[in-house]
């Protein structure tokens, strides 16, 4: 029986889909059978990020409406035989699916894999409610911005009210340099406000954009540090006890000079 994890955030554009694609791939690389589900009906993206767009024949709504069998709609990943995608419908909207239908679908998926990762749409409306309806656990993605954190806080409250317990937190797009100079909220600031457990920190990395545009995921690139951070999160999902180290980058010459003048280092 699979464990079902929903990835959500409240605010859009903070990295839900990127995180779903990378964590799904990472779990598959670690030998688990994984199904990633795009619950963003009408605005599907996960297929693009995984580079599977041109293989879609049936989608989530087709399965729910009985136009096809579940296995017909599951698309095998290009790189990893253990990873499957259940794409969202692009020509429907969120009302095409009800919470009960979503729970039934998720329960069908449970017997097909070890992990089911659901990519939630942004917002707090029916799309979000559908995405968490069948989940055993919720992971919240946020960036160190006031607006994203405010939305994450709201979403945590809604998850708790829906009986999903305390979600886990991924802090995405952290810039250590800006944190050091006091221009960005630190990991500690975020944890103080949100008061939930951290499961990983992902640095701001331009490589995410290029990878996304190519339909590749970073965890496949062995040289990518960011990919490694995602693999660490996947290991933590599997229950391994891996310490969350602060994100380090090399301080610039200017920073080191001013540090010297202030008597640091």
């Amino acid at each position, binding site marked *: 029986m699979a464990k079902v994890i929903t990835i959500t955030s409240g605010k859009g554009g903070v990295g839900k889909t990127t995180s779903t694609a990378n964590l799904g791939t990472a779990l598959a690389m670690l030998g688990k059978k994984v199904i990633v589900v795009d619950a963003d009906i009408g605005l599907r993206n996960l297929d693009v990020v995984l580079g599977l767009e041109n293989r879609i024949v049936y989608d989530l709504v087709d399965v729910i409406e009985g136009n096809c069998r579940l296995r017909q709609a599951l698309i095998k990943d290009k790189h990893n035989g253990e990873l499957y995608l259940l794409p969202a419908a692009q020509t429907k909207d969120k009302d095409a699916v009800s919470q009960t239908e979503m729970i039934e679908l998720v329960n069908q998926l449970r017997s097909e894999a070890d992990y089911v990762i659901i990519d939630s749409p942004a917002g707090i409306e029916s799309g979000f409610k559908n995405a968490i309806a069948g989940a055993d656990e919720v992971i919240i993605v946020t960036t160190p911005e006031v607006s994203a954190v405010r939305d994450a806080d*709201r979403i945590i409250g809604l998850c708790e009210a829906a009986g999903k317990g305390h979600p886990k937190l991924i802090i995405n797009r952290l810039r250590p340099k800006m944190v050091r100079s006091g221009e960005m909220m630190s990991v500690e600031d975020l944890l103080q406000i949100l008061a939930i457990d951290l499961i990983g920190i992902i640095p701001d990395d331009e490589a995410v954009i290029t990878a996304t545009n190519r339909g590749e995921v970073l965890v496949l690139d062995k040289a990518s540090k960011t990919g490694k951070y995602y693999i660490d999160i996947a290991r933590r999902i599997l229950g391994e006890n891996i310490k969350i180290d602060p994100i380090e980058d090399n301080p610039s010459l200017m920073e080191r000079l001013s540090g010297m003048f202030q008597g640091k280092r």
Partner: protein
Amino acid sequence: MSEYITIKGSRGGLRVQILDTCEWNDAFLALQTQMRDGAALMHGMKLSLDLGQRELSPQALDELHQVMRTYQTEPVDILAESRTVRAEARTAGFNAKPPMPKSDTSAPEQTSSVLSRTVRSGQILRHHGDLVVLGDVNAGAEVIASGSVVVFGRVRGVVFAGAMGDRSAVICAIELSATQLRIADLRARAPEDQGQKTPEIASIEDNHIAVHAWHDYRR
């Protein structure tokens, strides 16, 4: 609060006892005033109106139902001794029950409450009486109480104490960086500069809300 009505907190709601020996018009007016002044607290809480032995005409019940609908989103219970009043109340659109047994009403009322949780953005905590929150009140969250509010944590959201008009209510917090503070009929906005990181207390002084460091505060 007026002499005609008494409000008590009950499990998950409020019980409004309406004196059954006075003129209905006096009681009705007092109730309307209370509903208006205490709207922030009463709106969204489950209300039961205890009419006691009072007999009420169908018209009066209709009127009462309309007033309740103006202020209230939750269904309202009518508690009445008279079976006729209960039947008429149901016709008017209320839920109707006989009043609670005497032993229940005489039980000591619990007015203060301790809650151990983070109040998050979008959540509203309502309480009749004094409230202690062991945790943070985050930005976008609201805490509303008819008595005082003590937060053993950071306040970044909105706190409303004395929500039924009690001007002696106070708001205390380990870190009081509230977006807005309200006590009874007064409001205060957070100063633009960073709030103090020391425990503070807000109370009404000379018709405005004053905030003092806890160690400077003496009654």
